[in-house]
């Protein structure tokens, strides 16, 4: 069973909740798909057993010795990455999308592509099972692809180790990496918080998981920071037939747990937060 934890808005507590789910009871495979800002390895200090490089985008570069500055490539670039400068024709590394078209049309073979191989995928063991996470190199684009690679690896580990539950810590937002994180999962948990931004982003995230027809539940984190807004969120969820799996109070122990490299359920198993999460996890596991 694959469970994806997403949020729309960042910083709602997605990773802390994923960490709790991953350490509550049975051993699991944990897939950190927030490849742009992977954090779970900080809590779990996994033993790396495998490392794969991930070729993300490519960038076009000009060979100054061959370039005649004819400028033919400039109008072909759909990304406005090529321009004339005092040094001649230049390609902006940040604007280049890596499509290869300039390389193909250059009559002097003065353009070549270089691969960005800085992104990595790591797989290994942690104290409650196996773990896979990706780390996207700065400026990289294809995080949806890296997410797919992380999930594929997680499924392989799940099969090989017999650990049936895969917990996916998804990225924020609603873009391609989020879609890659939830495609084909058994259940999505959206973590939100009582703020107008939280409600608004919950709506966008629910729209996505709804469009895939995936069973979706909501956890309201820090619900007591603003009970009015929490009620608005609950009303919206009810209207849209989304089940609330848990209401977590604001709890400084969540940060204390993080500082001590523990999940909240490991750090303060008797706390209300841990109890709510434990009940939520049971609900998620058994009612899918």
């Amino acid at each position, binding site marked *: 069973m694959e469970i994806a934890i997403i*949020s*729309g*808005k*960042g*910083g*709602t507590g997605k*990773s802390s909740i994923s960490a709790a789910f991953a350490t509550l009871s049975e051993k699991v495979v944990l897939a950190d798909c927030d490849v*742009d*800002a992977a*954090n779970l390895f*900080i*809590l779990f200090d996994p033993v790396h057993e495998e490392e794969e490089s991930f070729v993300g985008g*490519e960038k076009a570069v000009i060979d100054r010795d061959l370039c005649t500055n004819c400028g033919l490539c400039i109008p*072909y670039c*759909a*990304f406005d990455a090529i321009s004339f400068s005092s040094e001649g024709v230049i390609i902006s590394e*940040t604007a280049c*999308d*890596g*499509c*290869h*078209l300039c390389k*193909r*049309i250059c009559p002097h073979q003065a353009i070549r592509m270089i691969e960005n191989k800085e992104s990595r995928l790591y797989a290994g063991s942690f104290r409650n099972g196996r773990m896979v996470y990706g780390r*996207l190199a*700065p*400026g*990289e*684009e294809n*995080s*949806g692809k890296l997410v797919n690679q992380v999930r594929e690896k997680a499924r392989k580990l799940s099969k090989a180790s017999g650990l049936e539950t895969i917990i996916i810590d998804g*990225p*924020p*937002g*609603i*873009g*391609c990496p989020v*879609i890659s994180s939830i495609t084909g999962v058994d259940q999505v948990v959206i973590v939100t*918080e*009582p*703020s*107008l*931004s*939280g409600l*608004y*982003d919950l709506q*966008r995230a629910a*729209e*996505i998981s709804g*469009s895939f027809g995936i069973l979706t539940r909501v956890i309201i984190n*820090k619900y007591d*920071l*603003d009970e009015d*807004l929490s009620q608005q969120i609950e009303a919206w969820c009810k209207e849209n037939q989304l089940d609330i799996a848990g209401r977590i109070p*604001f709890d*400084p122990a969540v*940060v204390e747990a*993080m*500082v001590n*490299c523990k999940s909240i359920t490991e750090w303060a198993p008797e706390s209300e937060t841990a109890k709510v999460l434990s009940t939520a996890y049971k609900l998620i596991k058994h009612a899918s």
Partner: protein
Amino acid sequence: MTDYKPIKIAIASGKGGTGKTLVATNLFHSFISKDIQASLVDCDAEAPNAKLFFEWKLEKTFEVTQQVPIIDESLCTYCGKCHDYCHYSAIFILPSAKVIKVIEDLCHGCGACTVACKFGAITEKAMPLGEVMRYSLSGKNALIESRMKTGAYSPAAVIKAGIKEAGNGQMVIMDAPPGTSCPFIQTVDRADFVVLVTEPTPFGLSDLRQSVETLKGMKKPCGIIVNRAGLGNHSLYEYLEKEHISLLMEIPFNRDIARTYAHGGKLKDLDPSWEDRFLALFEIIILKNGNSHNKR
């Protein structure tokens, strides 16, 4: 204060939810009340929320599109050259069965297939990637929102269009998307100064490190705002000291701030001194940016 040379300030963070929008909107509120002409561009195109913090009137909206190919099968010879040229696997072809399909969601609009086709079988149409909205606020200030269409491959094009809409004639504050990947780069690339908002937790520090390294590589000047100060531990401050990164401001963690923000309020309504603190932040940025006396 109105005679400073206009600069673009990006408010960014590696980790999501650290308070980028809190900082961007409060800085902008201070500009508005001091009649500093400025635009706020909400570049967090996957989750744009800045407009929740203002009274606004929609001034205009325009669509951001990319080109996608249309294949005329009556002209197509199934030679497969377009498929070879496509670096995004957006053209599916089965020559033996005479099947060719464009997978629009994978297309980046580079136009390589159109160039590849020697039979005139490929034309292009515009496909929406998102929208840019311009809202007028009080005075001459504008809020510009880049909003990506759900499921589009990248918010980069809508972000660029939003920043372009802000122009160069005045102060621009950019509320950046989280992370350090392409959408972040597209935003900070256009900034003169980057403010990184973080929180004093292990996750906050880990993501901050990655953002700082990325900005170093881009040679962008930056400074840090610590939000929710008082939570977490001291490692963040040790890191800032060791790396000689300037701490621009601290925003303490308290429930009143959290609640004010949750309702779309401004910090100065909670405590009027916040307005001056944000103006002081602006002064520091101007000084660090080295154009404090560069009057127009």
